């Protein structure tokens, strides 16, 4: 088991980003890198390997769905677990994200334990 996991949080809202980072900071074994849109996320992914990616959908420059597609087409990250966090609560939005390769879908507003549980599940961290 890794002693420390790396996580990329892609979210354009500074408020949501801070809230997600704060939630993840409750897991002592996770190191978080932040990106403020899809392109910034790709830049960070090109520079390092991450154990998990959390992304919003509605973002300027490049949205979260395009980012999921790009991650899945990159051999280096094609197996990296992706959690999509979005205000879009419709089933079709969730299906679209999952079809593109997301591993989980969380709707906003979320509660920290939801995010922590999903991250632990995808990273196979025992509680």
């Amino acid at each position, binding site marked *: 088991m890794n002693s420390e996991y790396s996580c990329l949080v892609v979210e354009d*809202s500074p408020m949501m980003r801070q809230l997600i980072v704060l939630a993840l900071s409750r897991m002592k074994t996770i190191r978080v890198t932040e990106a403020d849109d899809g392109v910034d996320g790709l830049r960070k992914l090109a520079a390092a390997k991450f154990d998990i990616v959390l992304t919003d959908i509605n973002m300027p420059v490049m949205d979260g769905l395009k980012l999921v597609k790009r991650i899945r087409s990159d051999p280096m990250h094609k197996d990296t677990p992706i959690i999509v966090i979005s205000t879009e609560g419709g089933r079709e939005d969730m299906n679209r994200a999952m079809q593109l390769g997301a591993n989980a879908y969380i709707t906003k*507003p979320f509660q920290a334990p939801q995010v922590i549980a999903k991250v632990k599940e995808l990273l196979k961290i025992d509680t």
Partner: protein
Amino acid sequence: MTHRKGAGARHIEHPPKDTTADPRAQRAAFVHAFFKQGAEFANEIVQENDRLARDVARLQRELKSLRGSLSRDPSGAPPVPPEALEAEIERLSSAYVASFQLHATLEIEQVLRHIRETLMQLAGASAMAVYVADEQRTKLWPVVADGTDRALLEPISLDDASKSDPAIERVFLTGELFVSNAVLPEGSRVGDPSETPTGPVACIPIKLGNDVLGVIVVLALLEQKGAFSEVDMELFNLLSAHAGTALVSALFYRAAGGKAPSLAVLGDLPA
């Protein structure tokens, strides 16, 4: 924990067969070996039992100590249930982040963005607007809208009932938060909880001290958001108390040409 080979699987060692020896001597040797190994086996079980009993006693001591440290409270209050602790962490995290972001900028657009995001991202609003009062305090003008077209929002005339909204007007005049009964947190609702709100779902007064400068209006909620939570109510109170200060500070900063005054003047304040 190390796994030991089960004592029950032990194989009895037979003495080497000596066909020349007396069969009675062979039988005696076998019985001797049998009982010797039986005694060793019993001894091992006793030792294993002792070790397990010591482990159980040690774990019970540790558990007792942990329980003691968790429930110990200097005031003698009973231990806090985990769910209540989790709810408190949630409340504090949201309030901390909303307050941090609101006061982390002096740019008016950023302050308005943070007000919008507190409602849209944290509290689950799908449409909202910010109304501010004019100098005569007779009209409230929509200055920000999200999830709805601002051009479609009419100004609210406080001196003309036909161009007013009772909930928004009341909040502006009283400075009291309004949340529609249907979307109040569970346990806070009165009357029919299934009633559909007809007007705004929430109106938050923008206060600066005792003055009300405007009203933040939540017009609709996200599909997945059934009702507000206690955390949302906390966020509304926070916005009510802090949004005005953040907006006025940002306006002063803009009026000063985006330059912060020297803090040296603080030295002139009476001690």
